[in-house]
């Protein structure tokens, strides 16, 4: 099998297909769908990175812990406790991911970027519970696709693949959203709140380790913030434009986008 076909199967075909099967399998309990979609992404993740190291060694090894902690946080009874749990898990994971860079190349700019990422995450987690966006799966799929393409173009195919798997899992939920003209969604709030920290974790890894340019990172983060703070029915168009701009910037700043 061609190695590039394998990449497509690992990061797009398998998670999209399994997620679609799960959606149309008649599992109506939210908890089943949440756990099902989480397991699908984790399966793709384990295959792509050839199984994470434990205890975590590299930045991508932390992702599953963040993901699982975010899912568990969703089942905490009290709303404020949920937010605190989710934010604490996000804070700890982002610091663990960033620690090697902070250790070798500490800088105020880096610390500032991390603070912005953590504060943004915290605000988005709180906001997502209060005012869910009208097309959460479509919006998240657009954001994850943007990150996948930008990351693959800027340096890391691995982070691109993990983001593509996230886009594929959420993308299958985007189809019924589009068919229903964005009036309703099968994508549960718990799913959004599990995948959102994962997306932000991948964005952090791409920025810190895969040379994702600052302007591109800012546009991708702005897309996530916009979709949470401006929950219009067709806000996804703005999100799409911001992601297209982020990818465009990577292409413009690259002197060579040729296949290698």
């Amino acid at each position, binding site marked *: 099998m061609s*190695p590039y076909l394998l990449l497509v199967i690992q990061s797009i075909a398998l998670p999209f297909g399994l997620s679609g099967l799960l959606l149309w399998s008649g599992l109506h309990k939210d908890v089943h769908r949440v756990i099902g979609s989480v397991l699908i992404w984790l399966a793709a993740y384990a295959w792509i990175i050839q199984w994470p*190291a434990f205890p975590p*060694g*590299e930045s991508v090894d932390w992702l599953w812990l963040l993901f699982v902690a975010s899912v568990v946080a969703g089942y905490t009874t009290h709303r404020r406790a949920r937010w605190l749990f989710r934010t604490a898990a996000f804070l700890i994971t982002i610091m663990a991911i960033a620690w*090697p860079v902070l250790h*070798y190349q500490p800088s105020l700019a880096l610390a500032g970027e991390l603070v912005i990422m953590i504060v943004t995450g915290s605000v988005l987690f709180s906001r997502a519970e209060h005012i869910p966006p009208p097309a959460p799966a479509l919006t998240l799929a657009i954001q994850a696709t943007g990150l996948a393409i930008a990351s693959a173009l800027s340096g890391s195919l691995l982070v691109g693949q993990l983001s593509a798997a996230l886009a594929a899992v959420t993308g299958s939920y985007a189809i019924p959203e589009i068919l229903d003209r964005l009036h309703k969604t099968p994508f549960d709030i718990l799913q959004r709140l599990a995948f959102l920290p994962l997306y932000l974790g991948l964005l952090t890894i791409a920025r*810190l*380790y895969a040379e994702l340019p600052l302007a591109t990172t800012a546009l991708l983060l702005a897309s996530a913030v916009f979709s949470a703070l401006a929950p219009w029915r067709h806000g996804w168009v703005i999100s799409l434009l911001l992601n297209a701009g982020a990818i465009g910037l990577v292409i413009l700043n690259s*002197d060579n986008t040729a296949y*290698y």
Partner: protein
Amino acid sequence: MQFYPAKYILKPFAFFALLGFLHIAAAEGAASGSYRIDPEHSTVLFSVSHLGTSELTGRFNDIEGSFVLDKDKAPGLDVTIKTASVDTNHEKRDAHLRSPDFFNVKQYPVMHFSADKVSYDQQGRPTRLHGKLTLHGKTKPVTFMITPVGAGKDPWGGYRAGFNASTTLKRSDFGMNFMPGGIGEEVTVTLNIEATKE
């Protein structure tokens, strides 16, 4: 147009004279002592299969280290290579190699080889260099096949010695698993070392 005899006649002769001198010195074996690696005349090369159709060769441009030449002592070879200096003559590929997909240079900025034993043949020539390589956060025992190249006085009054060493690694042993099939599992590493006696 001016003619510079020193530039056109004397320099080439001086070069060949130096080569001859180094060759004689090599035949006699390098002098014992401590040496510091000359990064401007040393290279670290690697080659790996690409799609099973060709061998892609790259290099690391930032190398430093030292060793001791003395049959009665441990070699004390210590080589540190900055992983961000990877160079395959393609900027995008180099960025990819620096990313978490491969060398993850932000987390593992250096790779390090330290040798603690040298094997000699019956004529007393060094043949193998045994040591430990730390790469991508993992330390594994590695043996390099070693070929002394030459030794002798240089034109600046110093003393130089050089050797070539090569080995084959499995990248998965060092946790570099990405793109199996597309990129070969076995990586050939070659050190071409020139060092000045301290």
